[in-house]
């Protein structure tokens, strides 16, 4: 299964910049959102089982999990749409049930939860008003949202006739009309083309620059990796992993790299490498590909190439694959189908 990412050059992502800033500036402040031992059952099904985590101001967290893992239930609990059985939730250090505490939250549901027979402007204005903005503030915010979504030219058009990507942008904008401190996004890019996804991520990056904390559920692992500082993996209602991608890799599949070497001619026999590279011979007779794993690229890659040459073959190409989030995800949640 070729799902790994080629990481010949390690990219420093924008998300990591944000992480550094957050760690240095906000570590002493109370979490913007904190969940402690949250539990929710539907009959005999434990949808959430002692879920605990916290979000710092400006942080972006991706919440991953197979179908039926409890992601949507968790979002609904935070929004107050589902009653908790046990546990507590805090916003800015205060119980979330406190007066006006949930006003700091913004929800962007997975469905296009808009009025298709209203125009962009009318949808934005309606949700601004429903979120408690005065008429004047709502009108100003609508102007901002039209610019932010790039839909100024389509302000008076009915949303029902928009493309999927445009609807998603309006859907997102309606969730932030009241400038929430925490934005909860339930799969915000489902069914949109790559261009629209990029535009949505640019919009989210703008929000993060303004200090909005983001909790994003997604099945797009590359999206989770690029757009978040931290990744939570939820399965069977439990948080089974919490950390940056590199931390999750280290804790689960390990940091070894997969190396694929193409040689100048088909192998006439398995290659014998130095013991610390591989204790058993590698390569299949008749093919020109040799695959093995190394723990440290900087030290072992040159030794590996040298060892191949010592076996009498010239190296024509090399690929080094880092463990992907998909590896981590499947390692932690298993390969069985989750039919919910």
């Amino acid at each position: 299964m070729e799902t790994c990412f080629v990481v010949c050059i390690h990219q420093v992502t924008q998300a990591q910049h944000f992480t550094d800033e957050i760690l240095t500036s906000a570590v002493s402040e109370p979490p913007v959102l904190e969940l402690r031992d949250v539990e929710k059952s539907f009959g005999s099904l434990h949808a959430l089982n002692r879920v605990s985590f916290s979000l710092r101001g400006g942080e972006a967290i991706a919440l991953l999990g197979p179908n039926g893992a409890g992601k949507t239930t968790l979002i609904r609990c935070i929004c107050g749409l589902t009653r908790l059985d046990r546990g507590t939730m805090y916003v800015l250090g205060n119980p979330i049930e406190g007066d006006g505490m949930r006003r700091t939250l913004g929800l962007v549901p997975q469905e296009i939860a808009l009025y298709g027979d209203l125009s962009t402007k009318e949808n934005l204005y309606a949700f601004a008003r429903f979120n408690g903005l005065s008429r004047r503030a709502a009108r100003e915010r609508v102007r901002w949202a039209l610019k932010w979504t790039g839909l100024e030219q389509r302000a008076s058009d009915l949303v029902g006739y928009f493309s999927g990507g445009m609807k998603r942008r309006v859907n997102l904008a309606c969730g932030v009309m009241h400038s929430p401190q925490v934005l909860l996004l339930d799969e915000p890019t489902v069914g949109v083309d790559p261009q629209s996804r990029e535009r949505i991520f640019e919009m989210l990056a703008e929000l993060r620059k303004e200090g909005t904390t983001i909790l994003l559920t997604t099945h797009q692992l590359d999206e989770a990796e690029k757009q978040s500082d931290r990744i939570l993996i939820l399965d069977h209602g439990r948080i089974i992993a919490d950390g940056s991608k590199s931390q999750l890799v280290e804790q689960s599949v390990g940091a070894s790299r997969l190396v694929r070497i193409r040689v100048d001619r088909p192998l006439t026999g398995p290659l014998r490498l130095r013991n610390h590279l591989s204790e058993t011979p590698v390569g299949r007779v008749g093919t020109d590909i040799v695959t093995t794993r190394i723990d440290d690229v900087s030290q072992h890659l040159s030794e590996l190439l040298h060892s191949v040459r010592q076996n009498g073959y010239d190296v024509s190409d090399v690929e080094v694959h880092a463990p992907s989030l998909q590896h981590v995800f499947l390692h932690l949640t298993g390969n069985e189908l989750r039919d919910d």
Partner: protein
Amino acid sequence: MIWTVWQVNLRRLLHNPMELLLTFIVPITFFSIFAIIFGGGVGIGSTPKIKVIAVDQWESDLSKALVDDLVENPGLRFMRSPSESKYTTDEAKELVRRGSVGMALLVQKDGDRVAVELLTDSSDQVAAQVVTAIVTQAIVEAEIKQHQPIRFAATEIPAGAAGPQPVSSARDESVRVVDVIGEGKSNPVVSMYAAGIAVMFLLFGATGGGGALLEERENQTLERLLSTQLSMDQLLLGKWFYMTAIGTLQMLIMFAWAQLVFGVDLIGHLDGFLIMTLVTALAASAFGLLLATACRTRGQLSGISVVLVLTMSALGGSMVPRYVMSESLQQYGLCTFNAWALDGFDKVFWRELPVEALAPQLAVLLISGIVMLLAARLLAIRWEMD
């Protein structure tokens, strides 16, 4: 918040030409069709006549006098034989059986007196009762004319004196149908159908409005709305007020049309009309919300609402007047929303009673509306939180 819900729903309506058409034009069209069919045509202001034929089997002076009297009666319309010959009894039976006439009168000898046998179609009970009354009166008058003219002559009263009128002068008016309610008014059927169709479409409109709530639930807009500062109370109240306003406007347009085209006096009964319309629309809107909150899907709502609204309309008098129904059906009809609303409109437009006389209808509609709204609120709890 409630005002914003109101605005959102109104804007959605204005963006939907088809929904506008269904809300305001289709009810008027239906009403016009019913009014033309049952009201006898545009602007007709008289009670419909019953189509009859007479077969004089006795052919005496008395029977001829009776038939002549009946032919003159304004409540009956006598059909002539195309061949100008007299109808036979069998032909008369066949005409009634085929529905070509409403009734056949067989004038017969009964000793030295005249008797009339009415061949009727039992599906038209009203016509049978009316014709029986007319014929009974005509027989009495014909017999008096034939057998006791001398007595009247002997008791002739001088012109201008007070007292009973001689038969000869009273005879012209003896079978005149005197309508104590409808004198000078448009056809009662028109105002009845204006109210009946309007209330029926009000109910359909209200269930459609309730469907919008289910649509919001199905596409998660409801969930999103409830995650804002909007509460379920505000949402339901906003929808209730909006649906009431649209229902009131719908009825106002319907009756304005009825006044313009069919002569129903809306302006003259504006106070009673407005209060009845407002309360009826409030109750209908609550009914729509109750149905919506009781259903799981729009498909379910659509099926249930069609059956319920049509049943209520049939029993409650929106389709046929309740006075043609049996006593027991009339009593069952009082369980429906339509019956109370139509009784109220009947008091306003036909009986011309003061607004105070509407108290029973207004009370029943208002109380049932509030009860239905509270029930809808209770049912909506399940949508607020798992």
